[in-house]
């Protein structure tokens, strides 16, 4: 097993309205193929940590290394390209582009990467949609889908470039029980196929189904344990 993510002594401060340390000396590693969940109470800094890992937030101390690349001090264009190639996101509020069809939403990051011609990106997007059971909605505008459907499409979008890691910020936080189970099911299938997944959640059931749980409190990791 190889290490795909390494965070070392990460500190993060908020300066407004007054200086406040959100993350305190966070150090952990993620192995390839691992399904990791980060849990903790609201305000413990778990989402902040995820956005640092996502490379979108660059204001921190310490070192983050992903897929063998050090991410500290890189410029925005490099990071954008890195995200495009190595990361897939699933957010709490599904965040599809409402004017585009389901298929286009999934295709966009793939077209941006430009690794495959458009036709092939489309085939791959359809394949991902089939994987999550949304193929029949491919031509619908994203705004016409239900919340749960949108979240599944967001997962397909995260998968389009075969990312090194998929990151989820409360991926089931806004869904009802049936949809939560559905989404969790999809995550689990992906993890079984060897996809590395990091999800922030406060749903104990969701966390219980993952390979490893990191528990945070007041900006520090307080416990870490593997699920059987």
């Amino acid at each position, binding site marked *: 097993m190889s290490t795909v993510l390494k965070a070392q002594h990460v500190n993060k401060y908020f300066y407004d309205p007054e200086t406040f340390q959100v993350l305190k000396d966070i150090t952990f590693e993620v192995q390839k193929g691992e399904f990791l969940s980060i849990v903790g109470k609201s305000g413990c800094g778990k989402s902040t940590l995820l956005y640092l890992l996502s490379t979108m937030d660059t204001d921190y101390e310490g070192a983050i290394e992903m897929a063998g690349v050090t991410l500290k001090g890189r410029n925005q264009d490099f990071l*954008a390209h890195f*995200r495009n190639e190595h990361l897939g996101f699933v957010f709490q509020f599904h965040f599809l582009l409402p004017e*585009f069809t389901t298929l286009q939403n999934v295709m966009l990051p793939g*077209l*941006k990467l430009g690794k495959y011609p458009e036709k092939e990106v489309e085939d791959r997007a359809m394949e991902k949609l089939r994987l999550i059971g949304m193929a029949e909605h491919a031509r619908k505008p994203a705004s016409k889908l239900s919340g749960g459907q949108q979240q599944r499409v967001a997962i397909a979008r995260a998968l389009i470039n075969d990312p090194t890691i998929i990151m989820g910020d409360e991926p089931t936080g806004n869904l009802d029980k049936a949809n939560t189970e559905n989404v969790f099911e999809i995550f689990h299938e992906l993890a079984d196929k060897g996809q590395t997944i990091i999800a922030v959640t406060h749903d104990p059931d969701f966390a219980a189904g993952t390979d490893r749980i990191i528990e945070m409190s007041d900006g520090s990791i307080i416990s870490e344990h593997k699920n059987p």
Partner: protein
Amino acid sequence: MNIRIAAQIAQTHLLAKKRQTLVAMLGVTFGIAMFITMISFMQGVNQFLEDSALDASPHVRMYNEVNTQRPSLIEQLNPGGFNVVYHQKPKDELARLKNGLAIADRIAKEPGVLGVSPQVATQVFYNNGPIQLSGTISGVDIERENRLYTLTSRLKSGSINALRTNPDGLIMGSTLARKLNVRTGDKVTITTPGGGTRILRVVGTFGFGVGTVDNTKSYANLSTVQEILQKDPSYITDIHIKMFDPLQALPFGRQLRAEYGYYTEDWATANQAILAGEQIRNMLTYVVSITLLVVAGFGIYNIMNMTVINKIKDIAILKATGFDGKDIVAIFLLQAMFIGLSGGLLGLGIGFSLSYLLSITPFEAGDFLSIKTFPVIFSGTYYAMGLVFGVVTTVLAGYFPSRKAAKVDPVSILRG
């Protein structure tokens, strides 16, 4: 940066908000249409005034300036001394150009010269019964004069051949003829400043559309005027020259002056008022047009700003999935460019229609101007200028909101 995806996203954004896109487009359309209409019309007016002035006046006129001031003999012999001379009469100097006909023939052979017309011009009184009007009469070789001013097309009645066959013929300015109450075939008595009189028959009337000419001028045969003035057949007072290129007339006039030593006046000097008016109208056109385009630009700026604010979640999601700042700028700049280009093209069409309508609108200008409809110029340059202006304004107006969009921090949006 991948321009194709950016274009695809831009297109989807534009189509999703058709009404807003249309409003932004119409802002540009209106600005450009007005620009095209105004500039075509103003330049048409300029061109018309310039043409009528240029048509009625020679490009270069050579004449002998009679200088009445001359130093007295004693002043010449004892300069700076205590010399007192009362009531010195001017010398009897003729306004003639020596060897005028020979000079005219030589100038006609110079390159770039369209035509040369040597003539005798003098002030006269026109008498018809009790009416007495002052004016000028030009003794010309009507063939050569016709080559310069295309008199045939300006004749209101009669013909220029009648002047050639009738030594006592007279072609008179139309307004002057009306004031004298004479028509083709009537007789008019001419009185020169020297006191000579002659009865001439009106064989035609002309109208240049320039008040100062139609009101005062008549053409007669060169030899007739020389006779009235009691001068010899080589007596020439003016040489009128037309060039193929009016702009060449300015240096050519200076050259002739140096060559022959006679005073020359070019069309630009003779028509300074018209040229000054032209500059003012040009200035006005550009100021108004650019103001319109700037207003349209602010409209686009506003709409693009609103679009960026409305799409802030989309921008965050695009950035999160790997689109960089340049992609985001491209997406919004392409929208602005599309609005500018399509609005601009529509504006060109409407501008063309408006100018065309203007150019067929009847316009009664009276005696002073010889036009029946508004003068309008249709020139590709103005349309190209309008489009360039329109696109540049919209790109500028779209650039600042796009840059703002590129700077959106996705984390703060996505965390909700």
